[in-house]
């Protein structure tokens, strides 16, 4: 039977290829994501492993590795001397580690995906796997060594002056060395190396270091060394083996990549889901067409199980082949993804491509299992063919059962839909996340329900769509519509891929619009300063010195800086602690009070906290209650909730007075600086003066309130574009599904087309017929997709109303999508229509 299966695939190459293409694209996306992130991780692992070379254990600060605003605690230099004195330690050296920005040849800061640019201090032997490719180590405050990848990309050479922003304004350093880690190829993120004294000065950490590398004495194990060191450490510090330290550092990379990884994977799975629909439809149709073949096999003595096995095996072989090619495609996709990020100005490690066993396993498993699962129901239907049907003419319509078959999916689908709606609406969960989860479950159930209901509305919907074209008894639109509605289940699944894709596009659009609107409204309501100094990307920390620039700018009467750090308050972890200056913040920022007043912030003292509404809800905090703030390094402080405010844009989490914030956290950099001008000051002049002053901090800008609002909108927009690009792949798969279904349907209707040509239909009319049928199918998918997308967006935004996210229908986009859907349908019809028009009339009439 397996031989028969294989021969079947070979004989129906074209169909098999189309089916496999859907699986291939989905598997490619999933594998590409894995390969992409594995490759980046491998490059960083190599960098980190080399960085810790020579060390057996590493002392570092406790740190929230998942946070981009993490600020680890430094340690006193005296600790190095005490560690050196330990019997188990052969050597110990301290290292500075800070965040820097290298300015490229084009004057723009070099961005890096997955990691910031690190500034480290030179670590003398026996430590560090740093290899000097050229030159020597930096020896004074005017010198720097830079990594080879950056030097190559930016054409920086020994002796060149390179502008670098550290804790200080931009300064030019002379390149004395080009370095790499170990003997590795170009890998990891960009970094610069200063000498220890220079690094301390640049980051204002006199008498301190960030890391201590320790080598073990002969015969001392890492465990022994750790036990010796541990009693010397404050609770904020931790000692780990070098290997554990590498893994901790890698976690930070992973968490910074997780958004990209998660997004790519999610879209990969959506693509596979749509691919499954395509496969299901293809197998359903081919099983119907091959009814006689199965009947013959049964008549010749094949058991039902053997017939089932033959079809399932066909699916499995197809899935396996497609997944294998998909795996290769994944490697290609990883290269493409990397090229895309590089093209958008992100520096990326470029080590060799990593194809992990997990990637192969997941890729093959997903591809094969999805194909087999999608082929199961059609395979089961193949076993229902009676042997007697081998003797009968093919294609006997079983009309009586059609109605019943149509009804079968509707009943469970309706129940599912009602259940989903109930979950979505009745979920009166007190927390936003609870309601969001309920909404998501409800939404998925409703989408499934809708896929089940679509067959029932294909007929009526196509009648409505066709009506304007069929007036005056025109026959071609009529035939196209009848063909589209002839097998509603088939058309429904064919349209479903497009439906799901478009629903997601619209959902994301509406949701992003709501987010953009709410962010803009929050900024408009709360920011009363004239300018806000922040990093170009709006989220990276900025040097503390930038606040001084603002204070010295003419016309400025108030400056209020803000710091942020990861923290926990009461029962709510992973929130942001914001350090504010209670004496100046009221000049530039107006709190949106839930419980409190201007006096609350003006009188805010250490030991008091203002809590944002969502965090207060999550931690169940009320005004007057006492709670505990815990920093990432484990430091704790008791605070009283003084007020509760609402702000989901700038001041999420909770706010402490800066005096207390600085005692608790080790954050040196600022999050943002709000600036207010005096009455009558020239805003334009002040704005350009401010930005002139900030020129020494590349990547830092002063934004007017309007710019701040627009910038927030633009950021949402660029994420939106990425989503669209990924969804486009899913849509492509959906279109392949339409092509495939149409091709198979035409094959089924060969004789009919032959008759039409015989009675005088021109090839052009045949093409038009197929095109219209496809356009109808696509339009049905588009319309339902738009309806579902709007519905989903409505449900989800409703769950998020308290965050100010509003529901508004983007009519322009809806119209554009509708037109695009129809065009897509016509495009998908091109190959099958050409094939139908080419049909030889005689052969078609004689076709069985």
């Amino acid at each position, binding site marked *: 039977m397996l031989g028969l299966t294989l021969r079947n695939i070979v004989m129906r190459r074209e169909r098999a290829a189309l089916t496999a293409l859907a699986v291939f694209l989905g598997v490619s996306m999933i594998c590409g994501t894995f390969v992409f992130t594995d490759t980046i991780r491998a490059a960083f692992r190599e960098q980190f492993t080399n960085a810790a070379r020579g060390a057996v254990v590493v002392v570092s600060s406790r740190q929230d590795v998942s946070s981009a605003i993490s600020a680890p605690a430094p340690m006193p230099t005296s600790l190095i001397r005490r560690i050196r004195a330990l019997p188990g330690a052969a050597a110990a050296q301290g290292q500075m580690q800070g965040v820097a920005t290298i300015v490229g040849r084009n004057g723009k800061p070099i961005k890096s995906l997955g990691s910031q640019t690190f500034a480290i201090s030179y670590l003398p032997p026996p430590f560090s796997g740093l290899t000097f490719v050229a030159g020597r180590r930096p020896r004074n405050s005017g010198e720097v060594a830079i990594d080879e990848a950056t030097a190559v990309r930016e054409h920086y050479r020994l002796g060149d002056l390179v502008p670098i922003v550290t804790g200080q304004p931009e300064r030019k350093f002379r390149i004395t060395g080009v370095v790499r880690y170990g003997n590795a190829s170009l890998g990891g993120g960009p970094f610069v190396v200063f000498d220890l004294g220079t690094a301390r000065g640049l980051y204002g950490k006199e008498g301190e270091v960030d890391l201590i590398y320790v080598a073990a004495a002969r015969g001392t194990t890492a465990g022994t060394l750790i036990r010796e060191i541990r009693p010397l450490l404050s609770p904020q510090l931790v000692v780990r083996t070098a290997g554990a330290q590498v893994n901790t550092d890698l976690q930070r990379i992973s968490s910074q990549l997780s958004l990209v990884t998660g997004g790519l994977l999610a879209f990969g799975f959506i693509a596979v889901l749509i691919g499954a629909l395509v496969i299901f439809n293809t197998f359903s149709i081919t099983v119907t067409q091959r009814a006689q073949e199965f009947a013959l096999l049964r008549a010749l003595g094949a058991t039902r199980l053997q017939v089932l096995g033959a079809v399932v095996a066909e699916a499995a072989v197809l899935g396996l082949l497609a997944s294998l090619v998909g795996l290769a495609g994944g490697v290609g996709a990883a290269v493409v993804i990397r090229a895309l990020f590089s093209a958008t100005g992100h520096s990326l490690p470029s080590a060799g491509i990593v194809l992990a066993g997990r990637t192969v396993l997941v890729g093959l498993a997903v591809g094969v299992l999805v194909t087999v699962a999608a082929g199961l129901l059609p395979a089961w239907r193949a076993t229902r063919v009676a042997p007697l049907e081998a003797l009968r003419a093919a294609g006997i*319509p079983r*009309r009586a059962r059609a109605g019943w078959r149509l009804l079968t999916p509707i009943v469970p689908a309706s129940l599912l839909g009602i259940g989903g709606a109930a979950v979505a609406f009745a979920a009166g969960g007190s927390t936003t996340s609870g309601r969001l989860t309920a909404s998501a479950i409800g939404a998925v159930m409703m989408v499934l329900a809708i896929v089940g209901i679509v067959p029932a509305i294909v007929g009526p919907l196509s009648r409505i769509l066709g009506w304007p074209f069929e007036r005056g*008894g*025109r*026959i*071609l639109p009529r*035939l196209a519509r*009848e*063909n589209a509605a*002839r097998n509603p289940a088939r058309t429904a699944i064919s349209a479903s891929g497009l439906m799901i894709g478009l629903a997601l596009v619209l959902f994301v659009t509406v949701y992003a619009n709501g987010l953009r609107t709410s962010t803009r409204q929050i900024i408009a309501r709360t920011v009363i300063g004239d300018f806000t100094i922040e990093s170009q990307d709006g989220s990276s920390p900025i040097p503390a010195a930038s606040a001084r620039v603002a204070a010295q700018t003419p016309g400025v009467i108030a400056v209020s800086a803000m710091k942020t750090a990861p923290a926990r308050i009461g029962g709510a972890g992973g929130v942001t602690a914001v350090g504010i200056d209670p004496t100046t913040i009221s000049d530039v920022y107006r709190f949106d009070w839930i419980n409190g007043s201007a006096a609350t912030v003006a009188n805010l003292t250490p030991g008091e906290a203002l809590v944002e509404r969502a965090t207060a809800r999550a931690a169940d905090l009320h005004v007057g209650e006492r709670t505990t703030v815990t920093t990432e390094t484990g430091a704790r402080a008791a605070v009283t909730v003084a007020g509760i405010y609402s702000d989901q844009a700038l001041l999420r989490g909770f706010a402490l007075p800066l005096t207390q914030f600085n005692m608790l956290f080790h954050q040196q950099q600022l999050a943002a600086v709000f600036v207010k001008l005096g009455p009558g000051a020239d805003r334009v002049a002040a704005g350009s003066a401010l930005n002139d002053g900030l020129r020494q901090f590349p990547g830092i800008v002063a934004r007017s309130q309007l710019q701040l609002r627009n910038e927030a909108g633009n950021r949402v927009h660029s994420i939106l574009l990425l989503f669209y690009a990924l969804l486009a792949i899913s849509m492509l798969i959906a279109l392949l599904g339409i092509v495939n279904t149409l091709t198979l349907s035409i094959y089924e209707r060969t*004789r*009919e087309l*032959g*008759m*039409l*040509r*015989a*009675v*005088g*239909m*021109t*090839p052009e*009319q045949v093409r038009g017929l197929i095109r219209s049928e496809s356009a109808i199918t696509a339009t049905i998918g588009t319309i339902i997709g738009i309806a579902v997308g709007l519905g989903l967006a409505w449900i989800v935004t409703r769950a998020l109303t308290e965050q100010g996210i509003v529901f508004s229908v983007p009519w322009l986009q809806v119209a554009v999508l509708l037109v695009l859907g129809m065009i897509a349908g016509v495009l998908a019809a091109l190959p099958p229509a050409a094939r139908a028009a080419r049909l030889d*009339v*005689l052969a078609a*009439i004689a076709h069985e």
Partner: protein
Amino acid sequence: MAGRRLEKRYGDGPAAVDALRGVTIELPRHSFTAIMGPSGSGKSTLMHLLAGLDRPTTGEVWLGSTKLSGLGDSDLTRLRRTRVGFVFQTFNLLPMLTAEENVVLPLRIAGTEIDAGWLERLLVAFNIEDRRHHRPSEMSGGEQQRVALARALMSRPEVIFADEPTGNLDSRASEIVLTMLRDAVDKLHQTIAIVTHDPLAAAHADRIVFLADGRIVRQDSSLTAAQVLDALKALY
């Protein structure tokens, strides 16, 4: 309608098959011709050539003063729309259209005006006027073939070709369809040619052309079914 010295060769080289080896045939106006012969005798090929569905290797096909062998594909399509009618063994009605819609389908495709009086006359003549709003799946085979006949006649073609029109029908339904074909010639003044295996069908024809091995081996006018059977026996 006439075919002159028609030859048709499929394939080339040693594997080539000669389906027709020089057939000259005339289908006089208002006549009913049956083309008979064993399987592989070339009877279907002959019909396809005459109907403009296929092109002869050599020879000419004339419909009135039009030479079919000189026409391009679009002209042939137009000719099939207006001047030639078809009836197939398997009826070939569109399942989603009603009987009446199927009858007027070729005119709709051509975008020509529909003669309501002629439509009524055909529906009555083929006794399907009360089935006009039914779909093919709700009709018997005989009824479906009568709809197909009406469809072929709807554009008042100069000639109608029927390929095994009774091949899928039982004897009663066959008899009705054949009588109606006969009536179409006698009362509606049509020209009809059928390809058939069925001696009973051939017995309704004015003229019977026997083919064997791609050549006309015998022509008779008005034979009985028994005579047709005898003639066929001689061929095998």
